């Protein structure tokens, strides 16, 4: 690895000229093709009588959003949070619980009796806020540790939340909650599969564009500096804890939004969304696609969920194929699929 990065670093740094432009052109072409394909997918899928594809890709977008949010702290900030499903699940449960009360599942108390609970305009920001608050509490404690302890404590918090919802009989306990219908959004019918597909795609793209600004901003540089050398950051005078906590909360908030979308997509929420295997799955997407890049987690979500879709049609234990694929990626493409394509360019 060091040899490869040496040559690219030296050759790239002084002359960003020709090679850089070529690569940009290649990237732009690829991006255009992917965007075009994704835009025509819903009508095409319906025409070809393969409407399930719309749902599959909606799910991919939602998981990609969660994976990118995890990568913000994992890949850019070096914080190996193994409890990302907690924020994902929390966002989903906010939508589920509001809709449960709106449908009159329980004699609603004051704040729950208002008609706004079915509205995405209210429910989704609430989901984001709840997930952010949860991340603030978990992060404030967890970020006082590092390394293996950090991994374990974030996992422990997520599992606590999982068991909390398993035992919360009011909201279905282990069985979860059914959601009567999708949230209302003025001007858009979310019950329409294609509309929901486009909305999820739009949210993902917007977040990727914001993320692009973010990781190259001063804040983003601090985050990357913490990953590179935290001791150095402290010696330079950065109050590292504050910046890491802010990033942790942002990642949690976006995972909460992904959770709210997931609840709408499934029409159902259950503690299973918070299970540690979901955290693991999101992390696999990040590592598979490429940590520390924005495109990587999106590619990881595509590859993992498509592999799952295709392989599970042929065999029950499709993980048996995924395992070796992961091993190969980790061995031969340390920076994931996207990193392998880019060969050493740190700017994803």
């Amino acid at each position, binding site marked *: 690895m*060091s040899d490869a*990065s*040496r040559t690219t*670093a*030296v050759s790239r*740094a*002084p002359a960003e000229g020709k090679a850089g432009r070529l690569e940009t052109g290649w990237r732009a072409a690829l991006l255009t093709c992917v965007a075009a394909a994704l835009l025509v997918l819903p009508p095409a899928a319906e025409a070809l009588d393969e409407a399930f594809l719309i749902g599959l890709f909606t799910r991919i977008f939602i998981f990609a959003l969660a994976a990118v949010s995890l990568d913000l702290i994992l890949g850019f900030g070096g914080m190996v949070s193994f409890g990302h499903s907690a924020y994902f699940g929390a966002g989903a449960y906010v939508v589920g619980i509001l809709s449960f009360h709106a449908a009159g599942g329980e004699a609603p108390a004051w704040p729950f009796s208002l008609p706004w609970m079915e509205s995405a305009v209210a429910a989704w920001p609430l989901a984001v806020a709840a997930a952010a608050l949860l991340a603030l509490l978990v992060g404030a404690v967890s970020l006082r540790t590092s390394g293996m302890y950090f991994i374990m404590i974030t996992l422990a918090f997520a599992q606590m939340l999982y068991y909390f919802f398993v035992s919360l009989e009011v909201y279905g306990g282990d069985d979860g909650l059914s959601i009567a219908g999708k949230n209302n959004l003025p001007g858009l019918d979310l019950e329409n599969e294609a509309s929901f597909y486009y909305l999820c795609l739009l949210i993902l793209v917007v977040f990727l564009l914001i993320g692009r*600004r*973010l990781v*190259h*901003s*001063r*804040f*983003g*540089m*601090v985050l*990357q*500096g913490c990953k*590179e*050398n935290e*001791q*150095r*950051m*402290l*010696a*330079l*005078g*950065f*109050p*590292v804890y504050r*910046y890491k906590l*802010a990033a942790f909360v942002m990642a949690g908030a976006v995972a909460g939004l992904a959770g709210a979308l997931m609840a709408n997509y499934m029409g159902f929420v259950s503690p299973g969304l918070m299970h540690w295997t979901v955290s693991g799955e999101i992390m696999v997407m990040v590592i598979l696609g490429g940590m520390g890049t924005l495109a990587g987690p999106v590619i990881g979500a595509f590859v993992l969920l498509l592999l799952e879709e295709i392989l599970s049609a042929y065999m029950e234990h499709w993980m048996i194929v995924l395992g070796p694929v992961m091993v190969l990626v980790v061995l031969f493409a340390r920076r994931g699929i996207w990193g392998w394509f880019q060969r050493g360019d*740190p700017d994803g």
Partner: protein
Amino acid sequence: MAEALLTARRLTKAYGALKATDSLSLDVIHGEIHAVIGPNGAGKTTAIKQLSGEVASDQGTIHLGGRDITRQPMHERARLGLARSFQITSVFGGFTAEDNVAMAVQAHDGHSFRFWRRARSEAALREPARRTLEQVGLGGRGGVIARNLAHGEQRQLEIAMALATDPSLLLLDEPMAGMGPDEANRMVALLGGLKGRVAILLVEHDMDAVFALADRVTVLVSGREVATGSPDAIRADPVVRQAYLGEDA
């Protein structure tokens, strides 16, 4: 004696039964280079860690510019003007040299809760970074990934990062460790050029460098100060010669 910039009084740090620093008192004068020498295990690095805030002192007080910083965490002390280099080179290996220094400039330039503007295009960060690289002799090397720099260059980069935070005092822990003679000479010239502009507390094993640079020398043995004085006085001090220099000189 001129007014002291940094005053440490009776600093003590014990690891179990071992006293790494034992009631150490030290004054660093404005603009001076103050060297701390002593045999291996004398507690020089521990003293630097206590002064920078990486290690909390068991006893004693530290004042910087008249202000009590004994209880301040490391990043607060850095903000107040204490910059530090590490015994083992500590840079952002995956960043370019210029990114490294720009990060140091950024540390000194207000808070970093700025989420939108591209930091690498900000002249306010890049211009001072380039100037500082120039100053330490890394002018043409800004685009190189830090871990691909030669060892001596990485140490120069560390000095650049320390300088870029616009400090009043540099704490340098063996800046010449592992350097060849040419690199060491360049570093001596660089540090000599800083004399008068910024105070330096220099921990160093290279005696030629110490006696070429220092205005004042403190000798530590087993965590205890055995002598402080001008380089000539230290060289002539019989206690020092016996305790320390006797083996070398």
